[in-house]
């Protein structure tokens, strides 16, 4: 009989771990993924990485990370650039600000959820064109070479071009 697929809560192999018997107080910042199974109090900063709070983890902190996965308990505001996941039996008391959120049935959450639209990154050349278009330049502007734009932002380029010519 085949075993039904179930997404396991375990993170990809974390590079840094705060173990079950470890308690940290203060500011924690990391440039690699972090797995917290102990206690953390203060602030946690991983703007480019994922933090996973394990089933034994107790975090009383403001968390700012790329991705936050909660299996244990968190008290504090959570801000994630990409995603917040609150797994079954996890507890979060605090406000969430993120682009995407997953709440499993059985999770306990008390707080505000603010979904923020992910920022559309504009290629640097278009930004430069926008800057020159908005500047009160009397100097004739050479048309910019056509940047390699993703289809989603192509209309922005079209509206910029006539202004450059003027």
């Amino acid at each position, binding site marked *: 009989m085949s075993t039904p697929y179930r997404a396991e809560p375990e993170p990809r192999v974390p590079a840094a771990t705060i173990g079950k018997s470890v308690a940290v107080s203060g500011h924690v910042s990391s440039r690699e993924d972090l797995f917290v199974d102990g206690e953390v109090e203060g602030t946690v900063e991983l703007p480019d990485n994922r933090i996973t709070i394990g089933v034994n983890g107790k975090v009383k902190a403001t968390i700012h990370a790329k991705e936050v996965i909660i299996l244990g308990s968190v008290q504090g505001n959570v801000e994630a650039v990409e995603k917040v996941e*609150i797994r079954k039996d996890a507890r979060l008391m605090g406000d969430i600000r993120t682009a995407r959120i997953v709440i499993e049935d059985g999770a*306990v959450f008390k*707080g505000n959820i603010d979904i923020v639209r992910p920022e559309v990154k504009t290629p640097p050349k278009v930004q430069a064109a926008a800057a020159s278009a908005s500047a009160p330049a009397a100097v004739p502007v050479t048309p910019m070479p056509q940047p390699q734009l993703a289809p989603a932002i192509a209309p922005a380029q079209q509206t910029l071009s006539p202004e450059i010519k003027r």
Partner: protein
Amino acid sequence: MLKDTLRSWFGHSGEAAAAAPALSIAAPAPKALPAPYLRTSHALEQFFQDLSGRDSLRILDLSGASQANLNFLMQYGHQLYCEDFVSTMETVFGKGPDFYENQANEARMEEFLEQTFASLHGPFDGALVWDTLQFLQPPLLDHAVGHLNRLMEPQSLIYSFFCSNDKLPALPVNSYRLETNKSIRVIPRGELPMSQIQTNRGIERTFSDFNSVKFFLTREHLREVLVRR
């Protein structure tokens, strides 16, 4: 002799048989919860009709966090605040027969109000209160409604309902998941002791500080109301 008797009762060895009745007494089978079901609500439909055309509204949901309600409200661009009202009640007052007696305890009352309302940052443009208020007894009920009144924007709406079936042995505790703007998936999650059933007059009195209370007829022994702040 004892072994033989036990074997005749349970059909296996004496030791195992001796353990069997003890186990069955210690851990009675948990009462199976009814299956989730779908119900239609005209009050809910009117609640969302009132919100339509506006986005970025702040909605309070007292049924606890759920992906379904989150997805439903986010598609309209609303901001959601989650609070599991009944779960906090069960934590503070217990689930036993003294559930309502404990609500008269001043310290517990304070603790409940603190845990529930201290972190709520209004004002809210709408509140899905569901049936949570029916588990509260005065004066705690009045305090809770007073807090809701304080947290709501003027002219905002509260959607709530109360069980009207006094024949029930206990009040069912459910989770509510929004399926459409007028249908709710009801997920049974337990029960609490029966309390005095709220009459229409009682509900009006409960919300006497609000602008208006509109009643809706249902076929499910419920008194549904839309309360305007």
